[in-house]
């Protein structure tokens, strides 16, 4: 196929040498994203740039909004208009978005937010790496909800998890965050995009009843309500207020309990489907590293180097950050003498790991506060000190 024609396909099948940012954008397009609303911010801007080029070719729409607040509301609106929608940002922009990510949780609106992390707080290190938004993606917005957050560690996985993010968003009806970091967003490596027929696409459930009988927030047995969008003849009610099955505000403890319990439980009861980890050399491990994102690459390097020296170390790589794989970690705690958690922050996942192990083993965070990823030697040194 000629290059010219290939540009206008949703799925850019073939071998590429490209960045994590472009791979994530291509993943979104491959799974059918047709709306991007955003405000450019380093180190995520290449995603917006790429979507601005590609979406019009595919009959989609790209809007550069006045800020991140409008961007997130824009993609919620696009989703209610019936298209798969997304935005991309970094820490400062995500901070502005959190209020309306909460709106997306309450209104059960499928969409995807890519956050390419840089060093913070505040404007911090615009061009340099961080992993400091872990807790923000969980606790950023007020109220109780269970977010889904995915964290790739290669250019290939940026593509694959962008697809997964949309699929979870559509399946469970919520905003899903794909958490990259600057290192991953900007590094180039091989990306293999499969044939279009190999891309697994999940679409939101549609109502089966008539518009007259339909209740927009009445869940099926799986706790997820089918979603009718504007223009299909069904009533579309969207409010951030506590609402009943009709979607009408109903401000009392009973409705609140039923609704909030359900939007949390639809995720909690499906943790098995959502939680993904990679286990590497854990079978006989006496020590373990728990890591995620670009740092998980160097953590694997540290495992390989330690193994050459006869130290039995393994790696548990978190692909899904939220919901947190606490049960797997608790089981690991019964096996190993110590768990190391290298991360580019001052102890975010480390704290969650400590909560998960229930004191059954020692947990040691290896922190870098932003600007560079760990090199394998830095992690190895810590383990060698204990082995």
């Amino acid at each position, binding site marked *: 196929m000629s290059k010219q024609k290939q540009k206008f396909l949703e799925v850019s099948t073939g071998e590429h*040498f490209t960045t994590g940012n472009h791979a994530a954008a291509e993943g979104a397009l491959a799974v059918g994203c047709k709306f991007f609303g955003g405000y450019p911010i380093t180190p995520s801007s290449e995603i917006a740039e790429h979507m601005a080029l590609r979406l019009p070719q595919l009959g989609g729409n790209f809007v550069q909004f006045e800020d991140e607040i409008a961007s997130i509301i824009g993609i919620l609106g696009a989703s209610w208009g019936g298209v798969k929608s997304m935005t991309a940002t970094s820490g400062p922009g995500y901070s502005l978005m959190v209020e309306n990510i909460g709106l997306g949780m309450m209104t059960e609106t499928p969409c995807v937010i890519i956050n390419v992390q840089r060093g913070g707080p505040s404007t911090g290190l615009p061009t340099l790496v961080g992993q400091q938004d872990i807790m923000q993606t969980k606790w950023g917005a007020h109220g109780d909800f269970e977010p889904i957050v995915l964290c790739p560690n290669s250019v290939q996985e940026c593509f694959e998890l962008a697809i997964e993010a949309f699929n979870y968003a559509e399946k469970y009806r919520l905003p899903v965050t794909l958490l990259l970091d*600057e290192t991953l967003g900007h590094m180039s*490596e091989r990306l293999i995009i499969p044939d279009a027929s190999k891309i697994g696409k999940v679409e939101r459930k549609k109502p089966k009843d008539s518009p007259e009988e339909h209740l927009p927030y009445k869940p099926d047995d799986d706790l997820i309500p089918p979603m009718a969008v504007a223009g299909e003849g069904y009533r579309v009610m969207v409010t951030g207020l506590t609402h009943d099955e009709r979607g009408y505000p109903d401000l009392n403890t009973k409705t609140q309990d039923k609704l909030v319990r359900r939007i949390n439980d639809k995720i909690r009861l499906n943790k098995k489907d959502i939680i993904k980890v990679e286990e590497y050399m854990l079978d006989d491990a006496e020590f373990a590293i728990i890591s995620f994102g670009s740092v998980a690459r160097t953590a694997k390097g540290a495992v390989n180097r330690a193994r050459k020296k006869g130290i039995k170390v393994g790696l548990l790589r978190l692909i899904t950050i939220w919901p947190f794989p606490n049960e797997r970690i608790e089981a690991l705690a019964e096996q190993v003498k110590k768990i190391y958690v290298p991360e580019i922050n001052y102890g975010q996942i480390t704290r969650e790991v400590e909560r998960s192990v229930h004191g059954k083993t020692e947990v040691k965070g290896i922190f870098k506060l932003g600007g560079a990823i760990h090199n394998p030697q830095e992690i190895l040194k810590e383990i060698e000190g204990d082995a």
Partner: protein
Amino acid sequence: MSRVEIRFAGFGGQGIGLMGRLVGEAVSLLEEGKNSVMTQSYGPESRGGASSTDVVIDEGEIDYPKATELDYFVVLSEEAYQKYIPKLKEGGILFVEEDLVTLDENAKKAKKIFKIPATKIAETLGSRLYANIAMLGYVCANTTDIFSEEAMLTIMKEKIKARFVEKNLIAFQKGMEYKSDS
């Protein structure tokens, strides 16, 4: 083959990023059984001033994507030389644009130093913009574990804008054929 680290560096506008991209792409897509990762300097420094691009090549997975101890340092400006020469490993190999870089004590740790007037060669083709590709040709002719001539020519034809391809291929050839007096 074990891990090989290469840094290309110069000043903004010399096409340093393109050098890394071409090499990374040639290796990743065309060299059987090899992986590569390319990273670029991305701060305010990439807008003017020293610019650098790293390519890491390995047969296995590339765990750490950044270069730390350079096996090869390919440098096209004095500022970049001063800034990055400490990263060249003991016994590493240095490629320099001889008219733009003044070597000092630090260069002694290099096992071998290859010098080329890449900019002058490019100017004979009508523009100094081809200096980066002339340098790539010179690197290709004098190394065996980075990329092959065949892979690079294929990638150049694919990735460089059609109207510049011919001159760049000549620049590459001139770099390949260049023999230093020293």
